[in-house]
């Protein structure tokens, strides 16, 4: 069975690659947090599930909310609002979890509400304005801005969103603490 699964995965991947070339290209899952709209390339998105009970883990970053049980698979979830250093909000029935798969790490993103699946043409994506603060890359996980209608969607780079220098920095802090 595992072989079959693997095979499925393989074929799935090739399909995905093919689709990347045409149908999935430029498609983004957009969600709303606060007033802003964010977008994630749809090729990263595995599935969307409703909010579910989260087992908290002590002593981790505040935006790592804990673990959920996704049909027997245990995956961590992070709160996107907290990740963006915004005030956390109440979870409602519109809140949901986008399960993304980045380099075969499965992670759930808690988002306030889903917006849509949009096709964004490549030429309408602009790099984020830097305002001369190149060194201080606060928004590095936003790699582009896209204008759709009268809203601006911030496009996220999931790889940077989930693995991040601040965790490394935090670990270094811990190490320093331990040494002192």
């Amino acid at each position, binding site marked *: *069975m*595992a*072989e079959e*699964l693997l095979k499925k995965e393989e074929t799935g991947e090739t399909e995905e690659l093919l689709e990347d070339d045409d149908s999935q290209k430029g498609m983004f899952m957009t969600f709303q947090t606060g007033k802003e709209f964010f977008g994630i390339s749809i090729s990263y998105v595995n599935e969307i599930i409703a909010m579910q*009970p989260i*087992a*908290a*883990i*002590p*002593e*981790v*970053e505040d935006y*790592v909310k*804990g*673990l*959920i*049980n996704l*049909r*027997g*698979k*245990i*995956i*961590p979830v992070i709160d996107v609002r907290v990740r963006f250093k915004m005030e956390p909000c109440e979870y409602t029935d519109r809140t949901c979890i986008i399960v993304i798969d980045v380099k075969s*790490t*499965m*992670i759930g993103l808690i988002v306030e509400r889903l917006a849509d699946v949009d096709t964004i043409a490549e030429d309408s994506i602009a790099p984020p304005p830097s305002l001369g603060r190149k060194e201080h890359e606060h928004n590095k996980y936003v790699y582009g801005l896209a204008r759709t209608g009268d809203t601006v969607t911030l496009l996220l780079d999931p790889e940077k969103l*989930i*693995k991040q220098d601040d*965790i490394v920095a*935090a*670990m270094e802090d811990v190490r320093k603490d*331990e040494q002192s």
Partner: protein
Amino acid sequence: MAEEFNTESMLDIFLYESGQLLEKLEGIILEKQDADCFDDDDINEIFRVMHTIKGSSGVLMYENITKVTHKLEDVFYYLRESHPDDVPHMELVEKVLAVSDFVTGELDKLKNGETPDGDEKQLVEDLDEFLGRLKGEITKQGIQMPQANKHVEPTQFYITPVAGDDSHFYRISIHYRSDTQMSNLRAYSATYALKEVAEDLLYTPDDILSNEASADVIVAEGFHMLLQTKSSKEEVIALIDSSEAEEINFDELSKEEYGRALSEFGREEAEPAAAAPAATKDENNKEAKKEGPKPGDYVVKTKEAGKGKTLAKNQPKQQSIISVNVEKMDALMDLIGELVIAEAVVLQNPDLKVPGLELSNFQKASGQLSKITTELQEVIMSMRMMPLTNTFQKMRRIVFDVSRKLGKDIELEVIGENTEVDKNIIEHITDPLMHLVRNSVDHGIEENPEDRTSIGKPAKGKITLEAKNEGGKVYISVKDDGKGLSKEKLYQKALDKGLIENKAMSEFTEKEIFRFITLPGFSTKEEVTEYSGRGVGMDVVVKNIQSISGRLDISSVEFEGSEMTLVIPLTLAIINGIVVQVGNSPFVIETASIKEFVRVGEDSLISEPSGEEYIVLRGECYPFIRLNQRYDLPDSIDKIEEGIIVVLEHEGSQVCVLIDKLLQEQEIVVKPIPSYVRKVKGLSGCTQLGDGSIALILDIAGLLMHDGERR
């Protein structure tokens, strides 16, 4: 695509089978290493192993493996047929092991996706020389050799069935109609049908399955077979599917003609000269008949017809075993875990909780379901358990190799090799165990037998490898009756190397001193040998064992011997745990590490000004951890008389932990915390509870360490 898949699976099967056969082979060899010679059963068995590996490696075109195994097969064929006395047994054992090593090495290469390119020449020459010597000795002694071996060039012989007096010989030629489709498959089905009755079967073209062009050849020139069988002509004809055949020529041959025909068939082979006389001369005696095709040839049925009968008797009772990909097992285990959770969701569904609802049939059915799922869980758990036999087999080999290299006379006793352990654990203990065994041989047993006899010990050293299963743990001990550990030497050495604080020896307990040998950079042997003495090792052993939450116990009496015992859990995947609750979060504590649950009053609590707290229980003082404070858990109990104190023990140190309440005891499946989440001290993993929620598993060692660091 389909063909590729086939070769892949063929390769898998080849690797698996050959691996198994080689293990069996080593088993036989090492069992008989001290005997004077192999008995007939062993010779037959080794012969069969070599023959099988040769055959399958030949099919897969791994020529070097084929050549080497073929050579060893020759040697054993000779032993089997001639029963020479005076076989240099030790040398033979070495030769067999050398071949086994060579093939194992090549198999490893294959496993890693490399080409098996080991050079077999040296080995083949050695074997040739050995065989030559064996024969030479025999001739000198004037013992009559079997006829066959006089005539046949030893490298050529290939075992074909004994031709009995009542055997018939046929030449069969089938000509198919010119419009026949896939005549090669038809030809194959004919050979397949004949296999049933054949003692020997040879056919041209010989590549009917692998070469599609052979179909054209068959249509053009016909398909020719040489058959040796006990069946009558009529029976044979009945077996051949004649539906598409235009003409079937059926000639009965005499033995002599058959022999000639054989050599004709073999005319395209490299050594026709060797094959032909062999075949013809053999007819004159009733000895086993040999001819000289290469392993690539299709000599159908040799295995079964020639040796099947004798082998049936020799084969030990075998459990029927299939090998399964571990990933599949893991997938199955995950699925069963999900099933159990799904079951809980159904059976405890809130929709069922309507007051006054009569559910007696449902209850019955659900009881049955629970029973099945529980059994299912037990079965999958037992499937992961494997006996230590193979691991111990490797140890035998090591003792054999190392003791011979070092010139020590050592006997190895193995006890309890059928003890079953989780497969994951076996993988983790093999290396450490190997190291311990090597150490025992190298350091433990005295160099000179005189050193032993002078203090009343037998000259032969003895190492005992024992495994037993006790109270959810597996104990594997390596015991030697050598010189034992000298406390003074250990202490002095550790001190010289600056591995310990400068304290008087009397301040260390015996156990602590023995533990010095597990410090990194410690080696008591003065010289570095090939096998041990580099000072890396014992610390690695300990680390490996700790990584599977096991430990190493050392005990020793100087001049009498030492004993190293690995204490490891039976399984990693499943632990018996107690689910407790702190605040809103469930935690799991391994049952084995819980000493007791107590409720104490405020008066047992001692607070230091620094904030440290201790609990006094029956006059003993234990460090105290409030889990809710340690992990910032809200809504939990702060007053210790309302909560429950769990006393935990890990490697002799204890700690008290405050929890809110106990939920249940259950077997839990340990899953790792996803690597994305930073490692938290005091947590070793997580698990799903019956209702699908996730509980974190407390790691006592981590808790204690964390506690120590804070102080």
